[in-house]
């Protein structure tokens, strides 16, 4: 992970997933945005950034790029990501939602072989309040501090940051791994990173129905995480999704556990791992304070 303010950052694609405001916020938060890539627009300026047709042109002009923020059309994400990897960029944050899952499978095979970190797709990215913003997280809800937020939602993540900030609890980092069915980095990877991160004293894990990421995280917390963790799961009252296939994992097929993917299942796993769970976002600061004692 290279998340220092000096690391060089690129934006690929200027679709509706990223606005002038997002770009301005990134700059205001210390991100060293050097350029944008938008095929066919080489030579233009977009949101104050010089725009190129190819990633390799940016590398040629500015030297090695650390992180790229991908906002192209979902069907072009695979191409943009492969282009970034071919230009030796090792951190990819994919903002675009709705990438076809088999494109992600192909990308992840490649990324694993090339030791590339993929955050997203359908992720607002990463913020280290006061230091760097990689993505579209609204910095106004954040303030520097010691709480690490780990989530796969977008606005729900901001909601929780806002509650923490209002309660006087700043954040060391906030990461959303993305809310698509298949995403790059996992809760497990980030739990490990936050466990080792000196600035982080307590971790808030935010979950929602679908898949079994929260269950896997709960098991990992019990086994390997030393720092205190507080959780919140949205959707405890939501009706179950109708088809197991929509959450399509092997566990959902074999065994066909009727509770697979439900908030209920996630709450049970967290309880088993002795992770305190907030009933509502506004209850999180209270639990965090308790954990910090």
């Amino acid at each position: 992970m290279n998340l220092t303010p000096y690391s060089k950052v690129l934006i690929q694609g200027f679709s509706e997933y990223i606005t002038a405001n997002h770009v301005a916020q990134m700059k205001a938060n210390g991100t060293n945005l050097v350029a944008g890539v938008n095929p066919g627009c080489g030579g233009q300026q977009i949101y104050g950034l010089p725009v190129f047709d190819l990633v390799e042109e940016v590398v040629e002009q500015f030297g090695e790029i650390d992180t790229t923020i991908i906002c192209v059309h979902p069907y072009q994400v695979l191409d943009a990501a492969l282009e970034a990897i071919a230009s030796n960029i090792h951190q990819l944050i994919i903002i675009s939602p709705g990438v076809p899952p088999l494109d992600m499978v192909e990308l992840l095979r490649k990324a694993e072989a090339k030791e590339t970190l993929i955050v997203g797709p359908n992720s607002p990215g990463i913020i280290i309040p006061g230091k760097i913003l990689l993505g579209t997280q609204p910095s106004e809800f954040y303030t520097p501090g010691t709480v690490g937020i780990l989530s796969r939602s977008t606005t729900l993540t901001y909601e929780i940051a806002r509650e923490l900030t209002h309660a006087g609890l700043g954040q060391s980092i906030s990461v959303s791994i993305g809310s698509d069915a298949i995403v790059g980095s996992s809760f497990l990877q980030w739990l490990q990173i936050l466990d080792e991160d000196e600035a982080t004293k307590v971790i808030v894990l935010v979950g929602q129905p679908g898949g079994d990421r929260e269950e896997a995280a709960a098991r990992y917390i019990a086994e390997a995480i030393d720092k205190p963790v507080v959780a919140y799961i949205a959707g405890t009252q939501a009706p179950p999704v109708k088809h197991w296939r929509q959450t399509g994992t092997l566990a959902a097929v074999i065994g066909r556990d009727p509770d697979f993917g439900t908030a209920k299942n996630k709450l049970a796993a967290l309880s088993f791992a002795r992770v305190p769970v907030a009933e509502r976002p506004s209850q999180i600061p209270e639990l965090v304070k308790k954990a910090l004692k």
Partner: protein
Amino acid sequence: MDLLEYQVKEWFTEIGIPVLPSQRVDHPTDLKRLKINYPIVLKSQVYAGERAKAGGVRFVETTIDAIAAARSIFNLPILGQLPEVLLAEAKYETEQEFYLAVVLDTAVCRPVLLGCTEADDINWELADEKMQYVVVEQEFSPFYARRLALKMGLQGALMQSISTVVEKMYQLFVEKDLDLVEINPLGVSSSGQVMALNGNVSVNERAIGRHPEIAETTTKIVNRYTSSETVRNLGDWDVVEMHGKIAILGNGAGLIMATLDLVVNSGGKPGVCLNLRHASVTETSPDTFKSRLDKALRNMATDKSIQVILINFLGSISQGTEVSEVIADFVESGASEPQSFLPSRSNGGKNRRENFPRLVVRLAGSEFDKARKHLAALKTPSDTSIVVVEDLDEGVAEAVRLARSTAYRRF
């Protein structure tokens, strides 16, 4: 999004998975022009897995019997669905029946091959013992399929013919961007010939945009699980369908669910919950946040069970500053032109003003500073003001209070 058996079998034929000679039957009299030899089996083309038990599958030996059976199947609803089409298929003598599938596993982020030497009535409780699987770690190559067949305990020629079928299933899976392709059962004859007797295919909805040929097949299927017209009108939007009085609109699925939980936990009953997302996802609906908000509000207003609309927006919306304009337009058009958003169900003469839902608008973030002021000054057609708050708990409490206290009933 699932296909019907006869559509699945058309795909199987194209890709080279063996299927029996069959013929689509749109009307019982089609059976007079049958090109398959009797005995045949007639199958109701519905989405329910239990159709055989429900009487949707019948073996017949003559044209007369076939027509009679077809008439009764066309009139037999299965899990609420009446078939539009039947499939007439040759009969097949099997010695063994297998289960085969390729499914996308979102936990390992890879496709998984599944196989079992039992089929049809798989006891899924015990399946983890009998079901074999292979994760397709790297790019697929036929050896993954052989690995599955061997794990299933097969050998020799049967091992090879099963792995060939799995290979073709995988090819279909990738070509058509599927979430699942399943053969259940795969019949094996006494001579070792294999035949896909029934199959399921689930198309990934996000990839349909790059498969024009599939988009055509599936347009009919989209709405089959929704009961309310309001939800149907929203097409492939991100909707949770519930039946309470408080409609919820938000940007982001997690936030919608958190809001829904809060409403329930505060004693309220959520109605339709709609995610307007942050931006448009698919090329097939090139819309904007603003247009989605407008459409959503007008749709909800047609649902008479909705008494309160709780709007919860926070963070970055590409057209954040225009949110208040859209809401203002909605409120004004409700006041002056009641017909405009009630095209079909309006009962003309009534005074719509009293039936206008209450609005609770929670807006968090500096982007909405102007919008908050603007909205707080508006009046709805029923002459009540719009409740504008910044805090989520407060917004939920207001919505629940309003839903409880609304003395009127909307018609």
